[in-house]
């Protein structure tokens, strides 16, 4: 499937569209006053998990699009993979940054509780997201190999 240029490009686009904003929101990349990329101590694992979520999303989502388009199969797996990507992406990004600040200013205590949950459980949520994406990858691979088998 990834021998097709279109799917490789799609995977690259998904990877970078997720990775760059996530690294900026998680304060690994800053562009003002200077462009800088740094991984502070104690945040290495968080960085690795962001990478894992982006890599897995970039693999699993195009695989499921291929499955739907070429094999005309149902859309449940892509739904799960997008759900996994959204959970992995939203965990932790709300803590102290502009999105959390805007949410709390607009929606008050309810948003405060939600953002507190997302930041307090950032690592477990991201781990769960990577686990979910791995599971989708496994079932999709199995499904594609059996459905493409020539009898």
């Amino acid at each position, binding site marked *: 499937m990834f021998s097709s240029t279109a799917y490789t490009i799609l995977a690259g686009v998904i990877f970078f569209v997720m990775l760059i*904003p996530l690294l900026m929101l998680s304060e690994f990349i*800053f562009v*003002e*006053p200077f462009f*800088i990329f740094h991984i502070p101590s104690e945040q290495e694992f968080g960085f690795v998990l962001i990478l894992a979520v982006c890599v897995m999303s970039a693999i699993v989502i195009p695989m499921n699009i291929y499955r739907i388009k070429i094999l005309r199969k149902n859309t449940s797996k892509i739904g799960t993979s997008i759900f996994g990507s*959204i959970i992995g992406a939203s965990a932790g990004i709300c*803590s102290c940054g*502009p999105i959390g600040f805007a949410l*709390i200013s607009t929606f008050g205590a309810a948003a405060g509780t939600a953002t507190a949950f997302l930041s*307090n459980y950032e690592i477990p949520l991201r781990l769960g997201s990577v686990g979910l994406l791995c599971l989708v990858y496994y079932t999709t691979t199995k499904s594609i190999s059996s459905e493409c088998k020539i009898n």
Partner: protein
Amino acid sequence: MNKKIILLVVFAVMIVSVALYASSYYSQLMQMQEHRINVSGPVPINLTNGSPVLGSPNAPITIVEFGDYQCEMCYHWYHNTRADIIDNYIDTEKANLVFMDLPGLGRDSFTAAQATYCAEDQGKYWEYHETLYNFQEAVDNGWASKDRLASFAFNLDMDLDEFNDCMDTAKYAKRIKANFDEGVRNGAQGTPMFLIISPDGTVKKISGAQPYSVFSQVIEPML
């Protein structure tokens, strides 16, 4: 068919989220640019409600930190960057530091900020500030509850009756609100945010827990 609609909705939500983030980021950049152009001459920020000055009051540069005691990024900045700034700029009297509260992350953020000013009444603002960043845990998990704040005061040999009275009467609630408003007025959209005020009054903004090298590159040309 329904599943396709759900899929489309999910994709639309993702695209809208990215677009919202991009537009918010762009407007922040524009605001910063505007701020940089307009701010020259007298210092535009009101520091009267902030913390006591750390370092020499006569230092040519003032670093203003807007923070929240429950903010994880403020914790990282405190533990990764602050010590270098103190060693190289505060202790050498090239700069001083003022902390202003921007409590928004949880219900205990506000009470923790109040506790620091109650500690200031007993001359222990910075000791209390440092204690809070050394003992920070997850947002609103009880680490900054009233009892815990009192126990921090006890460990710093403070008069507990005076401290509890200060907390119970919410003596500094208005001061913290004023700090928050000052932060918002100066374009704070998250914590930590820093304003570096040069001797001629120009202001440079640094958003987020950026490393020491960034502060150094901003401060050095101002000296």
